[in-house]
């Protein structure tokens, strides 16, 4: 298989969009950076939910743990951003491995409840561990050193933007490799038929824990990015809304295809940004209608729209 240049088109579009947005909206870099961080988070969710079919509403557990780990690491150990990302990844993976051992035996409602409960417990632990985490006031006093000792984090957020973009791009490339690997194929196999995977000799439970742990590491990176770029970690990182919104964005874009995560996050957060600025309360009407619209009319998400149109055109 020779690398097909057409496969790189979406990546080039993303790169071009990132460069374009940087110059067109130089004063919205903080918001654009939040989008990039969310993309990393939702990419991690796509591995779990889109590829392996693990229904979860508690993905914030790993994001939040990564955020606190990176924040505390920066304050107490080293303010180097890359080491901080590694700390976030390890923390996210560790919490995923431990909770995955409990969760991956369950299905359906029980799995959903376990995933929510884990995130709630962690949120409450962070709340009570006030001397360490700052509790409800949030973890403050995070000051990062320049990235690679060269690029200083600035007020407008230029460094933060390109830093987050680079991490996002690396995560995207890594996940493209992973989902095309035998490991990724086995995740799709488990999604399709766990019983058959067992019958071909795969230890399904252990494999699920492995997938969840890997995704946990990536979610931890997303949390760490957020902590470093915003210099703040609040209890909200663990919130149910955070997990639920990630699922909504993923399904909006389309599950199990990675670029769906990028598209869904970008669209959702842009609409939210504009609508919430106009009328924060009635925003829920829009998002509620949006979610129902997607589920009822484009169940495959935005990434599925071209295919659906093509089938329509062929008269099927």
């Amino acid at each position, binding site marked *: *298989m020779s690398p097909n240049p057409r496969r790189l088109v979406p990546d080039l579009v993303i790169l071009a969009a990132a460069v374009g947005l940087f110059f067109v909206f130089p004063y919205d870099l903080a918001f654009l950076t939040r989008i990039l961080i969310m993309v990393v988070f939702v990419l991690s969710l796509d591995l779990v939910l889109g590829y392996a079919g693990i229904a979860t509403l508690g993905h914030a557990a790993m994001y939040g743990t990564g955020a606190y780990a990176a924040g505390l690491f920066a304050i107490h150990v080293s303010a180097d951003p890359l080491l901080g990302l590694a700390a976030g990844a390890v923390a996210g993976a560790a919490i995923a491995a431990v909770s995955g051992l409990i969760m991956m035996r369950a299905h359906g409602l029980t799995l959903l409840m376990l995933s929510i409960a884990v995130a709630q417990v962690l949120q409450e632990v962070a709340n009570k561990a006030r001397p360490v985490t700052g509790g409800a006031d949030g973890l403050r006093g995070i000051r990062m050193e320049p990235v690679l000792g060269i690029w200083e984090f600035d007020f407008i957020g230029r460094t933060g933007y390109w830093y987050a973009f680079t991490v996002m791009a690396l995560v995207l490339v890594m996940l493209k*490799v*992973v989902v*095309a*690997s*035998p*490991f*990724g*194929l*086995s995740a*799709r*196999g488990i999604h*399709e*038929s766990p*019983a*058959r*995977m*067992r*019958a*071909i*000799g*795969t*230890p*399904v439970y252990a*494999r699920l824990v*492995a997938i969840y742990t*890997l995704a946990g590491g990536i979610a931890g990176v997303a949390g760490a990015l957020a902590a470093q770029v915003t210099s703040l970690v609040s209890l909200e990182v663990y919130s149910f809304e955070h997990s639920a919104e990630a699922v909504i964005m993923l399904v909006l874009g389309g599950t199990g295809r990675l670029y769906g995560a990028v598209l869904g996050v970008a669209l959702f957060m842009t609409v939210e940004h504009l609508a919430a600025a106009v009328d924060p309360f009635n925003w829920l009407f829009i998002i509620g209608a949006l979610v129902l619209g997607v589920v009822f009319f484009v169940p495959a998400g935005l990434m599925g729209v071209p295919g659906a149109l093509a089938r329509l055109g062929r008269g099927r």
Partner: protein
Amino acid sequence: MSGLEVNGLNKSFGGLTVCKDVTFELGPGDRKALIGPNGAGKTTLANLITGIAPPSSGTIRLDGRDLRGLREPQRVRAGIAKTFQITTLFKRLTVRENIRLGVSERKRQGLKLLRRADGDRATEAEVAELMHQFRLTRHADTTVENLAYGQQRLIEMALTLALHPRILILDEPAAGVPTSENHLIVEAIERLPKDLAVLIIEHDMQLVFKVARSIIVLVNGAILTEGTPREISRDRQVRDLYLGAGHG
């Protein structure tokens, strides 16, 4: 001895005995069929052998090794594989991906993250060979859900064979396949590796008599008799109990 030895196998659920003192052997190259009326315990017996359910008593040995305590995935790796009565294929994956999954999991490549699933030359050669053997090459890149039922049964066999079993259990390989496509299944069974030990659980007598060299008749969880197709077809008890009832 080499092959499968089932000895004094019993299984009961509550007060109901579904498997009674079953003893038989299955050696390399065997083509044995397991027949019996509905509810005779054929599927239960298969589940006991593959490790989906534990027996109440009795032993199952593979090449002299007791399989007690080994769960389904471990038994697959020991060499026992089974096709499913109702297909549970990976419906939204292509034929090629289905079989590739079988090969790569057998080779324990499932934890490899950084190389392409389609990048291993030996694996791809094996996948191509299996697709060729089961006449599936034409459909290689079709998703399974878009294929006819008969074809799905063939994928089922190819995927199971990808596990390199020494004992292959075919659970109703022709279930749901239209009679006109039955010959596809028969041919596929005839093309299986000669030294493979095959146990065929089947309703369809015609198919059984075409492919089996020995037949075990199971009634109410117990073995009624075992013999060659010729002996079984002449057995009065079998005629009365099974053939008579089923084909009368």
